[in-house]
């Protein structure tokens, strides 16, 4: 089943309340996905360098030592803070250096996301638990995408939890299942896209990353996705400045979008949108099949 929710702010009116507005949306999707939950939040962007979301299984992991190790090894400056089992590292160097360093020297540290703005936080458990664990209520930002999972295709694990990110600042959540993901994963691997799991959704994220690397706009990348990806899906996608929703040509996986002057919100079911300010007067509709709905900062 699974539930997906997204909230994209069109101006700065609610930026300081993004997490507070989004928490009830996640919790409203509990019945659709009680196994694990996660969200990708965009905000607190770094002007230079890269922001990583790192995770370690040990809640008492010594992040300070890791920060010092990175500073010494890569001769750079690291700002960091801890949030439950994850830590946000802001590093003034190239992403590749840090990723290679971590793979070689600290393979037990998982990279959840990399970019200038994105942070991905996800865990196994009920949405309410995860929302509280990471103190989502207090978070600020420009847009956020969340997922509550009812596991069907692969096990209930942190690694199988959404959102998936396979490229800088890109994230994707998915309700549905893809039928051609194995073949496509092979093709994408040959084109240099790295995958961490056997999950079908990660392939969709990888496909978009690949298309964006080829120079596509988000809209163009999604047009390719509609042609190449086979299966049932409602996707919600976040990029550094953008937000998009797309459904397959049959559109049997649910989705509803609400738009006001201040925000665009999407959810698997309308009930997740009912706590948003001004929802009574929002334009509410169910996205049509094979149609790309995209918003990008600066373009609207």
């Amino acid at each position: 089943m699974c539930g997906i929710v997204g909230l994209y702010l069109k101006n700065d009116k609610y930026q300081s309340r993004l997490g507070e507005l989004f928490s009830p949306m996640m919790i409203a999707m509990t019945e659709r996905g009680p196994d694990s939950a996660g969200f990708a939040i965009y905000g607190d962007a770094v002007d230079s360098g890269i922001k990583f979301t790192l995770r370690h299984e040990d809640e008492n992991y010594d992040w300070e030592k890791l920060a010092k190790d990175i500073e010494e090894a890569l001769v750079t400056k690291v700002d960091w803070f801890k949030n439950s089992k994850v830590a946000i590292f802001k590093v003034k160097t190239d992403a590749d250096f840090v990723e290679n360093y971590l793979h070689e020297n600290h393979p037990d540290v998982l990279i959840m996301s990399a970019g200038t703005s994105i942070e991905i936080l996800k865990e196994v458990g009920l949405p309410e638990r995860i929302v509280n664990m990471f103190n989502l209520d207090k978070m600020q930002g420009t847009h956020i995408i969340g997922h509550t999972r009812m596991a069907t295709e692969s096990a209930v694990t942190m690694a199988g939890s959404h959102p998936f990110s396979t490229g800088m600042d890109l994230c994707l959540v998915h309700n549905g299942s893809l039928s051609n993901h194995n073949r496509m994963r092979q093709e994408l691997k040959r084109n240099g896209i790295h995958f961490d799991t056997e999950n079908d959704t990660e392939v969709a994220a990888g496909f978009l990353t690949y298309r964006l690397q080829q120079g596509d706009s988000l809209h163009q990348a999604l047009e390719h996705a509609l042609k190449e990806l086979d299966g049932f899906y409602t996707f919600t996608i976040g990029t550094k400045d953008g937000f998009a929703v797309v459904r397959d040509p049959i559109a049997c996986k649910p989705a509803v979008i609400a738009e006001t002057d201040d925000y665009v919100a999407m959810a698997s079911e309308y009930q997740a949108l009912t706590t948003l300010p001004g929802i009574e007067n929002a334009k509410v509709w169910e996205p049509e099949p094979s149609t790309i709905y995209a918003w990008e900062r600066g373009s609207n």
Partner: protein
Amino acid sequence: MKTIDLAKQTVRDLNQALHDQAAACTETEWEVLNPKGQHNLAVGLDQKLKVDIKGHAGYYCGGMNKEADIVVHGSAGQGVAENMMSGSVRVKGNASSSAGATSIGGLLVIEGDAGSRCGISMKGSDIVVTGNVGHMSCFMGQAGTLVVCGDAGDALGDSLYEVHIYVKGEVKSLGADCIAKEMRDEHIQELSHLLKRAGVDEDPHAFKRYGSARQLYNFKVDNASAY
């Protein structure tokens, strides 16, 4: 009036209490609080009850309804009033996809918009949508009436049998074997009557009628060799 608060009781408690009324009716008016989008609210009723759901409903609300009059004071998820036999279901807000799917009788009124596949495979019910309906509405509709006061999405009435479809607004496209038809007096009468039953104030003369061209489902002897 009996009140069931779903913040304190389960959906199963609610449905069991409503089903218990089938054998011996002791309470006809029911109010459901805090539905919070839960699925399968007030399904399988078999008694002349009045049920007010105060909030948003999830999937299949009022499914298989017989006799009861159910009002959702909010929006409803997929498959509202699916397989309804008789009685009525009224949604004050929007309904998601497959509203009134396979419904056999009764009246479904959606005061907002309905999503895709509204009235899919309907078999005799009457559906009135005050707003718009999404793509593939009335797909394989067999009998009954679908009234849309707003616009209809792509492929309206695809592979249609004998549902009478009335649309006031634009139709994005007609599905296979669905055609526009003449609005005769009997249709104006049928539509007037239905709008009145639904409590919808619209001029029946403003609607267009659509129906089956009857090219797909009639057996043609020329095609006998294909079987």
